[in-house]
């Protein structure tokens, strides 16, 4: 008999808080550290209430130093702890880049598994909330490219909680990107307590037969709205939330390509060497998928320019119209 699990409607950011709370409760080796995560409960309130519940030894307000946060988390992780390191905004992660690319991602390999780095780096990312300069970056491609770190991006409260718990339990470094724009965009049913959403698995959020739209994070609502708009024209799009950007869910992508033969990839990160390029190559590398293609793969992405100051961010971001335009192009192809 299935036990009834209590669910409530909560926001994505509340789901993240619950995930950390659940794991802090279950596993005494879990720590939260970052700038303003303690007394203040995080600048977005992601760690709200955790300091009061678990105290300053486990919810740690660090000095203002991203390289310091990640570098010390590596040491903590190698020596028995499971740090959840918060980088206040993804655009501020770069001072820690060296620690991630040369250390966090290589310790397992360098020591043939003697030392490992079971660490989660959480960072709010993305544009569209009128944030100040450099607070809106979407540089996930840098980390997808980087060997040795998994990259996870939820787009709804249920996945956010399950994926963050899975990330905390993962034996290796995970970059967990949180779409700032969706933090409080809506409430969804989320179970209380522990559950996981597996890393490496995408989800089909809308079934369709004509076109496949692959997206993730804050672009999911854009992809879905464009698909709904095209539905009125009689075009049935399948929409897939990738959820994990590395490693990709090859099987699900392949199955959908074989079903529709027409692909649109949507991401707000920059175009050149962005995830769309990798997915295109992945389809090319999978012969059955490649041979199912009925049209050139399309992509709607951020431009190859720095994410602009907010007066121009709507021009920078992929729009419903831009995705719809690609749907129409493929439908008529």
């Amino acid at each position: 008999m299935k036990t009834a699990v209590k669910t409530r409607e909560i926001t994505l950011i509340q789901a993240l808080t619950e995930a950390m709370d659940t794991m802090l409760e279950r596993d005494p080796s879990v720590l939260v550290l970052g700038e303003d995560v303690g007394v203040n409960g995080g600048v977005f309130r992601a760690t709200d209430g955790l300091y009061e519940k678990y105290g300053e030894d486990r919810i740690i307000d660090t000095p203002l130093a991203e390289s310091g946060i990640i570098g010390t988390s590596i040491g903590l992780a190698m020596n028995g702890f499971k740090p959840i390191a918060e980088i206040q905004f993804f655009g501020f992660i770069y001072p820690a880049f060296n620690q991630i690319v040369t250390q966090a991602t290589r310790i397992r390999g360098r020591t043939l598994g003697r030392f490992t780095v079971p660490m989660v780096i959480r960072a709010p990312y993305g544009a569209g909330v009128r944030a100040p300069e450099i607070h809106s970056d979407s540089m996930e491609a840098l980390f997808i490219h980087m060997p040795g770190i998994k990259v996870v991006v939820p787009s709804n409260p249920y996945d956010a909680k399950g994926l963050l718990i899975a990330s905390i339990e993962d034996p290796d470094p995970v970059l967990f990107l949180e779409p700032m724009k969706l933090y409080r965009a809506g409430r969804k049913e989320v179970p209380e307590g522990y559950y996981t959403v597996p890393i490496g698995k995408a989800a089909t959020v809308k079934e369709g037969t004509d076109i496949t739209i692959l997206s993730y994070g804050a672009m999911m609502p854009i992809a879905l709205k464009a698909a709904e708009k095209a539905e009125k024209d009689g075009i049935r799009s399948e929409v897939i939330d990738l959820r994990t950007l590395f490693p990709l869910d090859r099987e699900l992508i392949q199955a959908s390509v074989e079903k529709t033969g027409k692909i649109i990839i949507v991401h707000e990160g920059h175009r050149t060497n962005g995830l769309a390029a990798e997915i295109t190559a992945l389809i090319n590398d999978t012969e059955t998928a490649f041979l199912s293609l009925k049209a050139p793969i399309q992509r709607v992405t951020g431009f190859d320019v720095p994410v602009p100051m907010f007066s121009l961010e709507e021009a920078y971001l992929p729009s419903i119209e831009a995705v719809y335009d690609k749907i129409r192009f493929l439908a008529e192809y």
Partner: protein
Amino acid sequence: MTDYPMRQIIDGDGALVDDRYKDQMTPELVVEMYKKMVFARLFDRKCVNLQRQGRIGTYVPFEGQEASQVGSALALREDDWMFPTYRDHGATLTFGHSLKNILMYWNGRYEGAVPPEGKRIFPPAVPIASQLLHATGAAWAEKKKGTDRIAIVYFGDGATSEGDFHEGLNFASVFQIPVIFFNQNNGYAISVPTTRQMHSKTIAQKAVAYDMEGIRVDGNDVCAVYFAVKEAAEKARRGAGPTLIEAVTWRYGAHTTSDDPSKYRDQSETELRRKTVDPVGRMEKYLKRHGYWDERLKAYETEATAEIEAAVKAMESEPAADIRHLFDYVFAESPWPIEDQKADYHRLKGGVR
């Protein structure tokens, strides 16, 4: 451990407690200092209101830090370099930045980071402490060119935790670069108090590690700040190297308009400081004690408000953001990916496929 007593010239009651600079404290200078601080405060409050009304984006207030920002900016020479953070528009406007452009910055516009022609003011630093190295480099360039221009760089207490802080001080020290590291220790890096940021008792003492002069001043005393910066500037101009100045001050308000300081500190301390050591208040007392106060000064607020309102009007009369600012300033000459993407953007806007 070297001791770093806090230098003060005028105390909270407006009394002259150090008369070494008495002769240089002309009525013109002290009145100018007062007016600039009043102006900065009015501008800051206006910006907070504009944000509340949705007329600009997230704003970073500096109220309480006027003496540090105005005093340091007035001590510079017109042609010096300034490297501010996002909280230092009190300094940049005193140093001659365009009010309209500062407002545009907070309205998410690229024009906002552009200083008036000929002013050497860098865009506000956003990633913490990155600007210390830029200032060091720019001042290094002046040294290589053989000029006597110097650079001043602003940063907060939190910035001293970043690697870039230490790298900046070290480079400046190794190459004896004419740069002033001007720290405003306002007690908090967002929610984290200075006592949690560092175990050191002062920021000034961090200069010791780089064999650099470290100075600690009352950052709410505009004269103490002014003369400390002036001396550091003169020293740098004659080739005697960099200085680290810690101006001890207090941010009255939130970190930004998105922040709620009551989450992490008791605002009663702010109220107490406002009553006892306010930068503007103490200068007003000083002016009154010395008979420099007159009705015209009292009326200055009206004059300043009119100037600020005119700048707001100018900002709001600007046409919408120019799409060329998105595409055309990444490179001197845009490579094909940007040109293609720009064409695609315009095609979609035009509704043609």
